[in-house]
């Protein structure tokens, strides 16, 4: 990190040897700069306002703006605006959701899928995280963790495709089963809730694993030793010590996996079938098939956002307050 050195050395080379101040020195001694800097940072309050400007703008403009606009469009009868037509306020888009099973079924199916996938992910990754945090030597943990991380850097589409190859009729699983003589005709794994689940869990497991691992890693070994010393068996130790202490990891892992798994679009399209249509596909339809259905898509997105956030909020509240009671 000789950047200061090389930078100043270059400047010195450009001028007569040793004649000129460095870049930062020249900047700070520059009268115009001093005046500007003096005005901008005159009081701590002014400095704070300046520091707050871009983040606050970004939070309200880029983070909150699109959501509010989406809600608003959900109340219009026509959008994008057409020439010569003033969009009217309407509740019809919201009402439509409750009137048609074509919409309600994918909606609840999505919630049920995400709930199921989250639970399965938790059950699969908890022992993995526990093994990593408690049984792998400190010095090797990074290596073992890295092994799990690498596949997760690969994108959604590529990994979905990998699952297609795995589960296809000519896929690896069917080939293996056939060569073992267990089946004669391939099992149609693909385009079902099963293949979708395998794919979604493949995509989201890391978001469960990492919070669990960091929660478990923080539990000092001597807590468990103390519990054992007091006569607690393996199961009691797990139930009374490990599980409550990893509650935070479970809560954030489940929240992340649930929220993220409801938001996939390409994976259900590629791995799912007509009987496993999820709400993301329903919503996307309004933006692809017909041009004038944005308001309905916006309203449906809003419904899904409210539902998912409310459910996770409720879940976190249960884990936080009554979680202690639940775990005991």
């Amino acid at each position: 990190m000789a950047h200061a050195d090389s930078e100043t050395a270059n400047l010195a080379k450009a001028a007569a040897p040793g004649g000129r101040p460095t870049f930062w020195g020249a900047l700070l001694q520059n009268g115009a700069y001093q005046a500007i800097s003096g005005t901008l940072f005159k009081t701590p309050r002014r400095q704070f306002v300046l520091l707050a400007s871009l983040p606050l703008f970004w939070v309200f403009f880029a983070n909150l703006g699109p959501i509010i606009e989406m809600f608003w469009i959900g109340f219009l009868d026509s959008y994008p605006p057409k020439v010569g037509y003033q969009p009217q306020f309407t509740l019809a888009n919201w009402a439509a959701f409750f009137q048609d099973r074509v919409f309600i079924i994918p909606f609840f199916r999505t919630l049920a899928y995400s709930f199921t996938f989250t639970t399965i992910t938790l059950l699969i990754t908890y022992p993995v995280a526990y093994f990593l945090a408690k049984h792998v030597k400190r010095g090797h943990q990074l290596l073992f963790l890295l092994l799990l991380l690498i596949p997760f850097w690969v994108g959604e589409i590529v990994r979905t495709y990998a699952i297609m190859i795995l589960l296809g009729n000519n896929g690896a699983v069917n080939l293996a089963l056939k060569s073992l003589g267990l089946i004669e005709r391939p099992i149609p794994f693909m385009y079902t809730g099963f293949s979708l689940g395998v794919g979604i869990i493949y995509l989201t497991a890391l978001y469960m694993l990492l919070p669990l691992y960091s929660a478990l890693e923080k539990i000092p070994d001597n807590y468990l030793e103390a519990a054992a010393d007091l006569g607690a068996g393996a199961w009691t130790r797990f139930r009374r010590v490990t599980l409550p202490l990893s509650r935070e990891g479970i809560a954030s892992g489940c929240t992340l996996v649930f929220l993220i798994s409801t938001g996939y679009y390409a994976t259900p399209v590629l791995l799912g079938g007509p009987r496993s249509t999820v709400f993301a596909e329903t919503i996307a339809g309004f933006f692809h098939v017909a041009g004038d259905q944005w308001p309905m898509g916006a309203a449906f997105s809003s419904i899904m956002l409210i539902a998912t956030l409310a459910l996770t909020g409720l879940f976190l509240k249960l884990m936080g307050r009554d979680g202690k009671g639940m775990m005991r």
Partner: protein
Amino acid sequence: MTGEKDTIVHIDNVTKRFGSVVAVDRLDMKIVAGEFVTFLGPSGCGKSTTLRMLGGFETPDEGRIVLDGADVTRQPPNRRDVNMVFQDYALFPHMTVGQNVAFGLELKGKSRAEIDRRTGELLEFLQLSGFRNRTPEQLSGGQRQRVALARALAPDPKLLLLDEPLGALDAKLRGQVQIELKDIQKRTGKTFFFVTHDQEEALTMSDRIVVMNAGRVEQAGTPEDLYFRPESRFVAEFIGETNLIEGTVRGIDRDAIVIDWNGMAVRGAAHGRQPAAGEAVTASLRLENVTCHPKKPTREDAIEGRVVNKLFKGSRTSLDIRIGEGRDTLIRAYMDAGNAASIDDDQLWISWEADRLAVLRD
């Protein structure tokens, strides 16, 4: 540059509050150019806040800070000729030792050649020449401390602030660094404003010590003044170990104040306010100012006593002695380990010089 006896800093009636807490309460203090002044006190006494106000990191609520004739009360740190050695040294980890030292010079707009020259000089002065291209990570605690000092000295500040810079060093090294630091201060002629809670550090290095407590100055003076002639109970107790003597003033005899201490008449002196006869007072008597005589001495003010406890402390022994009519008064004294062995039957006599028993103002 200012002359030898000029005031370089005037802390003019400064008050600083944090919420409802008064950290510094109407502090008024002048610091003379070239002086090594130490602000000493327990944590929360206001010494660090004072230092931070001098550095520009806190702004006083009331009062002014005048640096070399100019009011700098509201100047930000980068606009004052004051530099600081931080408690954790705050060396920039991404820069080499040389770059750290050069940083202040560079920002002052000095030319590359001058930066190089002065950096080289300072590193040599602080015996760091061989470390110029190392990073702070590769240095020992003592070396880091010297780099921090070199970096703070480089811009040639009018006042150097040192915020407990020896706290991170181990005890053995600390003694050596104290001597070095004092030596560097003498050779550079810089004004050092040193803040510490360690009384030994303060006594070793300072020209002048300011003892602070609860935002106020308890006493300011030379290390000898503070040690042997404390004015307040706080100073007497905070610095060193002492006997606190509680009694009533009987009267003034020649230069000494005569105090009734559990029926004994003892002689002392007041270095601050003079007490009146009949007043209840506390006085401080250092352990090493109590002379112990194994045999009854000729001086008439010697007090007979009985040793009730001996604590061997290497070169000397600390004695707990009961004195007075009913042996109801306890005093502690030091004695050479050899002499302590020659006490018969635990009986001895003690005496002290009157001006060593300091009558306190509270």
